[in-house]
């Protein structure tokens, strides 16, 4: 039986979500914008999914905008916020370890003349709170910081951003890429003072092809995709109802966040104890990281070799992020770790379905790989 430990890349779609998606494809296949009964029925399903996402984020449903992916949610948020605030200042604050779908749009804005401050991470993968406070000033128009890093699982102090913004009297909007955090830690954007938050379906056992952007009520975010005016004009294009309804079902099936965190922490501890006895295996994820993501380096065994070897036993893990196929981990490099550690870094990402036996088998095979391939 396969052991899937690459849940930060994507997850297996859960039965409830798959059923819901199938229903939308074969039965409620109308266009939610259509006038007729079938269209209205589809609109009903769209709104139900919206409510379900809103429930998880403790916000109101008209603050949720569906997008085709987390990437498009991030792009919509960043370009929209920059356009909205363009007369109020010129500085954007972000970090060096954001996902490419945040780094690249901000890079584009930089090329168009924006000043960008990128907060560095320390050797344990955390950004410094003092630096955050120093970076934000009256000229800042956008602060974009991810809730949980996708490669090492570090949790960023996003709850402090609103204080930093308020104290400096900055007009900045706050965006948070919560794709990896959604469903795994408690996120209440309204309470945390966050204006924009991106989430994605396929990281929480929903289908691929749906994401959502939380937009604080009253914020009139301009679109960067134009067309038929779906999602109140913010994200034009016919809604991918099968994926969106599946997203809603997956969100509704999320278990209690606190209980899961306790369970996953135990699993992680169990795994870390096992690898602690292996020579030359180091843990790159910080101690306070999200327990779902465990980044380790098996020194002397290149990431690619370990991944291919484990893959031959149907154990699936990855090197850094799946978004940058084949390349070495940027985040590990940013943390200032040795190139030897970066070359052998792998990411093991768990889900709520991961079992202790699966991790035992992984540890056993890593041990074998060390004997076989280390040089």
């Amino acid at each position, binding site marked *: 039986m396969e052991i899937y430990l690459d849940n930060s890349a994507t997850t297996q779609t859960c039965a409830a979500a798959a059923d819901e998606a199938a229903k939308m494809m074969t039965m409620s296949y109308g266009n939610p914008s259509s006038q007729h009964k079938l269209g209205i029925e589809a609109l009903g399903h769209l709104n139900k999914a919206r409510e379900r996402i809103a429930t998880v984020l403790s916000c109101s449903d008209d603050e949720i905008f569906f997008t085709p992916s987390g990437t498009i949610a991030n792009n919509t948020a960043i370009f929209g916020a920059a356009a909205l605030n363009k007369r109020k200042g010129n500085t954007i604050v972000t970090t060096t370890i954001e996902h490419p779908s945040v780094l690249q749009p901000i890079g584009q804005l930089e090329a168009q003349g924006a000043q960008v401050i990128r907060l560095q991470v320390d050797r344990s993968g955390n950004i410094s709170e003092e630096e955050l406070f120093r970076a934000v000033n009256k000229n800042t128009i956008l602060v974009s910081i991810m809730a949980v890093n996708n490669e090492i699982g570090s949790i960023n102090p996003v709850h402090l951003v609103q204080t930093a913004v308020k104290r400096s009297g900055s007009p900045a909007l706050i965006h948070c890429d919560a794709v990896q955090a959604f469903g795994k830690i408690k996120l209440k954007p309204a309470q945390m003072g966050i204006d924009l938050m991106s989430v994605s379906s396929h990281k929480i056992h929903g289908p691929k092809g749906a994401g959502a952007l939380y937009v604080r009520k009253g914020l009139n975010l301009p679109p960067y995709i134009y067309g038929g005016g779906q999602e109140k004009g913010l994200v034009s294009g016919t809604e991918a109802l099968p994926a969106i309804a599946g997203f809603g079902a997956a969100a509704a099936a999320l278990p209690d966040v606190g209980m899961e965190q306790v369970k996953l922490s135990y699993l992680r501890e169990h795994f870390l104890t096992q690898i602690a006895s292996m020579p030359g295996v180091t843990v790159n994820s910080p101690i306070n990281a999200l327990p779902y993501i465990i980044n380790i380096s098996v020194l002397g065994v*290149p990431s690619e070799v370990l991944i*291919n070897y484990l*893959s*031959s036993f149907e154990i699936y893990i990855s090197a850094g992020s799946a978004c940058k*196929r*084949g390349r070495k981990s940027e985040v590990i490099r940013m943390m200032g770790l040795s190139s030897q550690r970066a070359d052998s870094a792998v990411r093991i990402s768990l889900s709520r379905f991961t079992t202790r036996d699966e991790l035992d088998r992984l540890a056993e095979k890593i041990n074998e790989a060390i004997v076989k391939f280390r*040089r």
Partner: protein
Amino acid sequence: MQEVILIKNGELALKGLNRSTFEDMLIKNIKQKTGRLGEFYFEKSQSTIMITPKTAEANLREACEDIAKIFGIAAFSLAASCKKDFEDIKATAEVFLADELFAAQTFKVEAKRSDKRFPMTSPELCRELGGVLLEKYPHLRVDVHDPEVTVTVEIRDNRAFVHGNQRRGAGGMPTGTGGRAMLLVSGGIDSPVAGWMMAKRGIKLIAVHFASPPYTSPKAEMKVHELLKKVAQYSGRIELFTVPFTQIQEHMRGRCPEEFFTIVMRRLMMRIANEIAEREHCGALITGESMGQVASQTLHALACTDAVAQFPVFRPCIGMDKEEIITIARKIDTFDISIQPYEDCCTIFTPRHPRTRPTIEAAAKAEARVFDQAMLDEAINGAELKIIY
């Protein structure tokens, strides 16, 4: 009016009594490649091959795109055939060239009168037809030095043909007329280019790739498939043998002196290629090596690998700079595939300080420490065949 494709076979025209062997091979290659588009008639005369559709759905315009990638063709054009009568030629030119002339600003007319019994001389024909076309398309200007469209009228034995600009063919010799050779393909930029260059000279390619799972990923093998698929558009189908190489590399590790690792590995690859090449009736080996590019591609290192080769080793990239190789890789559309970052079997276990000037004796001595015929046989027998087209 009947549309046809006229193919000028260039270099083949210089062949002597065996010319028709080359032409027949070329026709066979064209047939194979255009078969999916419908049935065509092929006719050869006066160093030209003429293609006419046999059925209504056989599409000549699509066939042109295929023909642009077939070796052994200097130039070709989509033409209209008509009676050898000026009135008919005039009418055909007006209709057939309408789109091309409408989009152009300058043109000229050329005539080739291989049938000297035709009542008008070539200059007469050019003048008259030029006048007619100018009247019909008054926006045009005549430019005899650098025209946008050259209208050509060919008066041949049986019929006359009218066409606009010729397209350049892929050049070279028809694939298969030069025999079979085995390409050692890694997944880098150079080896597909080397294969393409030899195919261009009429060689039919058989390929061999060495895979070392888990050191190399399945994606590296997929990359080789994609690369050969691009080459096969020119060379025709390629039989690829993927040889499992892990055991040999692991056996070498620790036993072979580090500075000789790559040289010895390449010698073993050559030995494996020798045997597969012989079995597959190949007459040569082809590699993408370029002089001095890496330590294993110095004069001395190449001599060490050549020493075990039982066939001539062709290295068409040997005198080319990387830039020149890349230019070809871009042209044949392999570059973007080649630069995908997957490890191949040549880059793992690379020594930190490889020998750049090994002697053949020293290399042979190092090889003797790891040589194991049974292991090579196992690799050869474990090779998997995949046909790429």
